[in-house]
């Protein structure tokens, strides 16, 4: 039993609410991503679950047990920090085993877990080295190994990949997801990177200014954004938001739904972003910017007049307050 439930969580600093009434549930052995721009409160929520901050209001339950006021060490969680938080004066092996020594795990058991973990993340050859002599990716693996040997049912990750280069990031994404599944960990993963959220998550909790904008599996957030914020935050390039057909409304269309071959509305090509497999056309439509995504190399050139259209079912309608009009699930 390691499911996490967060109920009405509030964290206030000097009257400012960093987390403002947040509720969500993380099913056992699943991976939930807390996604949002910097300052949205996602890291604070993770630290509240870990017990590194004290909640102003609300509760955190892990495996049915209310841990809101419990010491971090007694919550049954392990944590990976953005900086990895490796102890610079200890070797890789000592770093990995730090928690087990503290918890008085027997020597034989420590050796067994160290060997397993080092093999899982490929650190066998550097166990005696100090963190300073490791590459970024290796440090990240040490932090993962620390989590593996802890054998805690819940794992909390705070932007664990943000210090790695793009190629390594893709690699580690797969590796973390593989570990989470193999070990059956209940994982809460904080990131501002929608690619990490979309590729890794069983469920995404999208946050903005301390509140939840939308939560659900990645396809739901992409296909039925509950708010204009969700529509703009998820998707690259983001959804086009235009003036709606009736005053006080917004009309959203994903760039891939904007077709050039239509006999639709006249627009002018302002600029092209050629990306190889596709081209983004930045168009001007009745004085508003709209981006269309075309496969391969697009024929039109800047300055050309084109006609664009999109299917009616590709339209998303929002109030100008940002709420979805056809009752988007939040």
């Amino acid at each position, binding site marked *: 039993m390691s499911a996490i439930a967060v109920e009405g969580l509030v964290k206030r600093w000097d009257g400012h609410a960093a987390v403002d009434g947040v509720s969500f549930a993380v099913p056992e052995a699943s991976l939930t991503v807390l996604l949002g721009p910097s300052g949205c409160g996602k890291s604070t929520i993770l630290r509240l679950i870990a017990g590194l901050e004290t909640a102003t209001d609300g509760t955190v339950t892990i495996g049915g047990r209310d841990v809101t006021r419990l010491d*971090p*060490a007694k919550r049954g969680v*392990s*944590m990976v920090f953005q900086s990895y938080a490796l*102890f610079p*004066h200890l070797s890789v092996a000592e770093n990995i085993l730090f928690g087990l020594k503290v918890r008085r795990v027997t020597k034989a058991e420590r050796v067994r877990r160290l060997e397993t973990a080092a093999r899982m993340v490929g650190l066998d050859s550097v166990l005696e080295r100090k963190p300073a002599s490791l590459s970024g990716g290796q440090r990240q693996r040490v932090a993962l190994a*620390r989590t593996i040997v802890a054998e805690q049912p819940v794992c909390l990750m705070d932007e664990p990949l943000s210090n790695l280069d793009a190629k390594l990031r893709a690699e580690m994404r797969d590796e973390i997801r593989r570990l989470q599944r193999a070990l059956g960990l209940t994982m809460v993963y904080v990131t501002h990177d929608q690619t990490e959220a979309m590729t890794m998550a069983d469920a995404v909790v999208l946050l903005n200014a301390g509140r939840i904008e939308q939560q659900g599996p990645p396809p739901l957030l992409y296909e039925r954004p509950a708010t204009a914020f969700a529509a703009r935050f998820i998707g690259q390039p983001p959804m086009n938001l235009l003036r709606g057909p009736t005053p006080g409304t917004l009309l959203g269309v994903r760039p891939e739904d904007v077709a050039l071959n239509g006999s639709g509305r006249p627009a002018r090509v302002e600029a092209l972003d050629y990306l190889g497999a596709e081209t983004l056309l930045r168009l001007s439509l009745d004085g508003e910017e709209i981006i269309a995504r075309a496969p391969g190399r697009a024929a039109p050139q800047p300055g050309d007049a084109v006609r664009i259209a999109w299917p009616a079912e590709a339209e998303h309608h929002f109030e100008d307050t940002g709420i979805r009009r056809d009752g988007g699930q939040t």
Partner: protein
Amino acid sequence: MPTSRLTALLLLTPALVLFALLTLYPLGRGLLLSLVNTDYGLADAAWVGADNYTFLLSDPFFRGAAWNTVAFTLMATLSEVAFGLALALLVNARFPGRWLVVPSLVAPFVLSTMVVTAVWRAWFHYDFGFLNNALRAVALPPVEWLFDPDLALVSLVLVDLWQTAPFTFLILLAGLQSIPRDLHEAAQVEGASPVRRLWTITLPLLVPHLLLAALLRSIESFKIFDKVYALTGGGPGQATETLSMYLYRLGFQYFDIGLASATAVVMIVIAGLLAAVYAWHIVRGQSDGGR
């Protein structure tokens, strides 16, 4: 490049001239004076070779002064680092108003030694002093702080501790604040108690700062003169005579400049060794990125 080297040399010249005049010349002259017998300059000096040094080694007063200096240096350095560490750990913990506490802790450090010794002479007073009043208040016998030969040196350490603990406190506080909070939090999640975190994380990571504080304080307290001169004059008897007091007595009361210079050379060698340890530590710290 030659032009810029020349410019650099020109710009350095004033500093180099001053260094030569104020440091190298006295150093060389002191070394020369330590090899002669004279009551003033080199003019009517008689060459005695290493005689001054052999005399020093056989002189019980020199050995006493050397012992006092080593004892003072050890006691002062250890107590100042330990006390500075305790204060730094206290202030580093988050409590309201701690930034008001720091200036009051640092206050003794900004006072001149003459003021400090005047304050402490009053506190040490047998009949009216604050310390003996405090002892009497808890029904303990009063103490001859500066006139008990077994205690006088410790009393001087107390004064030094009071004045310079703020210095080690500031160094160690800076060190504590350079330890990333993540490390403590990671250890906390892993189940390490505050005491365990102190021993396994804080202190090992503070070693460079502890070493720095200890070296700077030992170099400084090794040449202790002012507090001794102002509070005990080296007494009672020879109980608090340090090497610099001994040197002062030989040079400026007995005008045995040769012997005094030999003492100075011995002191320079010891202080130089301490400074070399410090320099080696700094250079090593730079070469492996601070750790």
